[in-house]
């Protein structure tokens, strides 16, 4: 296929710009889909202050997307960013951050995926891609070192994400890890509000409708040839030593090594024991299913496996699997993460492991966020059981655990057919539209996003994080070693004050991690070691306090962005069902809403934000070195 009329190349001048800091490519690739213009921009000045990934993305989003530029406006930016460790020999450093104004909250989004894209981007000479505008017809972006072209994607229309990747591999005569493709499926093309961006067969940037933003821009895919440019770390020996230490820690630390061995599979049984496995849309925390069949070894033995590791990753974590038995036998699928077992399984009352695994991959292929799908589908199932929604309204009968019915609903949502058109708006908007008793059953935050695949009524720290965060999902996420941050190793999980102090106290850790260009799992080591790897890569002496300060700066910028968009403190609480009192199981009768206001107060105090306006205080901004934001937020 030949390039389209809009194809162009980066300017020679910009292409010649070189990195000034080791470990970086040193250039940002910019694409305007409306005009077809492609150019590059050197960046070095702000590297230490913003690093990359979400740190860089938050700054660009704030500067370039004004409050009137809604998620579906051509001037919205879709930022695909990686960081200073991407492409270097540290485990899991093919990572990608997607930053944009998202379709679910119409506010800031930052969501991460792994695979090979981040490394390929760096090897091609870019630290990030910033896409603006809207193509006239469905297009894809092709990157092969300095050759960057916007190409016609009409032949990819309607294809799912795996089909899209296969088609592009054939088209370019490249397979394996020589071509990395991140794309949208039908759900993204049809602007489903919880559409995701999926890449490299099974890796998903899933939150806050970033796939809908891509769909609105008529950008079907970004495909990148592996790239030929060398990356030179400042201290190669020091980097390898830090990488070895991180790998050793992940293999041997008792808590971290679970991930090394089983990935996120133990989540199902562990969270069940804590009353935090969401079962049937939060209607219960108990099951009669034999939970020993959900232990990781048994779960993994149920399928034929192929390793499916990401760039430079020694973690025995990602797998492609073949379904052995049942009606889907023989199908190649991606082994579900915990979130997949939860969203495509327990949340909708399904416990058929082959069926869940199959549905989870179908969600990835359609580019639908598995968590939000679980909340939408579980809500429909509960409402039909209770008579709040009728067969006539939905179009067919759907009951708990019905995998084929769930798939039918997925297709209706992906193509916005019939009742699926309403459901494509996400569970908050759909339930508010239906109203009455049905509205009370929906799980969501008032900002418009939904929780990850846990029952947060048994995990208060995550409910508080989800409701107060500014990025459409969780911002803090507990570290493996919370004592490393001066936090207590143990607190009472049902003591709101202790929970709020902890969640506020670790704000920033995740944003630092997500600014480096790596994976959430391989970066579950000590931050001190990540800071050491960063220093070896760049030549900076990056310390842990600086790491946390960077993360808190990023959180403050995302918050400022949302406040400017009108997303304020009045939306920081869960829906009625999300914040309800569990009726059974280990968290029975622990009612977070009894303590909610106090928890939010304590959180505000801990992070140094003004409780009334939601703004980071002048003092906090000063400490973070964000004077320019002080002028914006607090000018009279």
């Amino acid at each position, binding site marked *: 296929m030949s390039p389209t009329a809009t194809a162009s190349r980066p300017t020679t001048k910009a292409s010649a710009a070189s990195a000034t800091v080791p470990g970086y490519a040193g250039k940002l690739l910019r694409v305007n889909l409306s005009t077809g213009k492609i150019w590059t921009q050197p960046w070095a000045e702000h590297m230490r202050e913003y690093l990359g990934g979400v740190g860089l993305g938050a700054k660009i989003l704030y500067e370039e997307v004004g409050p009137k530029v809604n998620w579906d406006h051509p001037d919205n930016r879709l930022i695909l960013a990686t960081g200073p460790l991407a492409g270097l020999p540290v485990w899991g450093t093919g990572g990608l951050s997607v930053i944009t104004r998202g379709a679910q909250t119409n506010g800031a989004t930052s969501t991460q995926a792994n695979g090979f894209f981040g490394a390929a981007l760096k090897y091609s000479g870019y630290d990030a891609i910033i896409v603006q505008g809207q193509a006239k017809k469905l297009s894809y972006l092709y990157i092969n070192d300095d050759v960057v072209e916007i190409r016609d994607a009409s032949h990819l229309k309607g294809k799912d994400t795996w089909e899209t990747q296969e088609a592009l591999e054939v088209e370019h005569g490249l397979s394996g890890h020589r071509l990395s493709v991140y794309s949208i499926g039908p759900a993204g093309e049809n602007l489903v509000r919880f559409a995701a961006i999926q890449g490299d067969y099974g890796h998903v940037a899933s939150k806050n409708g970033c796939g809908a933003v891509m769909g609105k821009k008529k950008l079907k895919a970004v495909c990148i040839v592996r790239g030929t440019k060398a990356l030179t770390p400042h201290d190669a020996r020091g980097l390898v030593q830090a990488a070895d230490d991180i790998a050793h820690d992940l293999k041997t630390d008792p808590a971290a090594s679970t991930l090394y061995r089983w990935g996120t599979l*133990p989540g199902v049984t562990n969270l069940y024991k804590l*009353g935090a496995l969401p079962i049937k849309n939060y209607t219960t925390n108990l099951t009669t299913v034999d939970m020993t069949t959900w232990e990781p070894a048994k779960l993994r033995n149920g399928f034929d496996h192929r390793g499916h590791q990401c760039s430079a990753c020694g973690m025995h974590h990602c797998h492609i699997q073949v379904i052995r038995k049942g009606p889907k036998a023989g199908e190649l699928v991606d082994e579900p993460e915990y979130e997949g077992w939860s969203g495509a399984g327990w949340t909708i009352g399904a416990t058929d492991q082959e069926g869940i695994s199959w549905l989870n991959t179908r969600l990835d292929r359609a580019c639908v966020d598995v968590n939000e799908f679980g909340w939408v589908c579980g809500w429909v199932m509960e409402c039909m059981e209770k008579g709040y929604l009728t067969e006539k309204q939905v179009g067919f009968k759907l009951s708990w655990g019905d995998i084929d019915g769930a798939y039918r609903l997925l297709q209706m949502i992906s193509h916005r057919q019939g009742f699926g058109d309403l459901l494509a708006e996400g569970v908050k908007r759909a339930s508010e539209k239906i109203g009455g008793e049905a509205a009370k059953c929906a799980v969501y935050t008032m900002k418009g996003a939904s929780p990850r695949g846990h029952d947060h009524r048994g995990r208060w720290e*995550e409910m508080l994080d989800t409701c107060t965060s500014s990025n459409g999902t969780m911002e803090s996420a507990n570290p*493996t070693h919370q004592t490393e941050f001066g936090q207590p190793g*143990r607190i009472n999980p049902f003591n709101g004050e202790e929970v709020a102090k*902890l969640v506020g106290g670790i704000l920033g850790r995740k944003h630092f991690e997500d600014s480096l260009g790596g994976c959430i799992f391989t970066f*579950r080591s000590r931050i001190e070691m990540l800071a050491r790897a960063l220093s070896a890569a760049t030549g900076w002496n990056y310390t842990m306090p600086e790491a946390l300060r960077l993360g808190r700066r990023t959180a403050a910028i995302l918050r400022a962005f949302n406040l400017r968009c009108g997303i304020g403190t009045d939306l920081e609480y869960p829906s009625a069902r999300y914040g309800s009192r569990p009726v059974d199981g*280990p968290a029975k009768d622990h009612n977070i809403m009894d303590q909610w206001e106090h928890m939010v107060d304590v959180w505000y105090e801990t992070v140094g934000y003004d409780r009334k306006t939601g703004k980071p205080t002048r003092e906090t901004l000063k400490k973070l070195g964000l004077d320019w934001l002080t002028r914006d937020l607090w000018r009279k």
Partner: protein
Amino acid sequence: MAQIARDSLTAQIEVTTWVTKHVGGDGSGSKLFTEPFALGETVRQVLRRFTARHPELDAALWSPDHAELGEHIEVIVNDAVLGVTHELDSPLKDGDRITLLGQFMGGSCLIMSR
């Protein structure tokens, strides 16, 4: 009241996930133990006696000075985390179940300190 023999009361101790490595397991699934105790003995006392027989578990479960629990293993008694129906110093009842749950990192786990 007459002293009840230790072996007439029992608690079940379930060791799960990576924690099983410290009690002769392979780091997956769970291992079950039946632990006799005397009337009035607490969760702490029974766990102390149990971990004394498993030195690796002893090091992993308790803080270095043994004054408190360490960071990465949750203690659940009859399906409730400590602090809800039991403290470490609550007496056990015949048939109680203690679960030692390895911290899972698909997010976070908060643990009670008292």
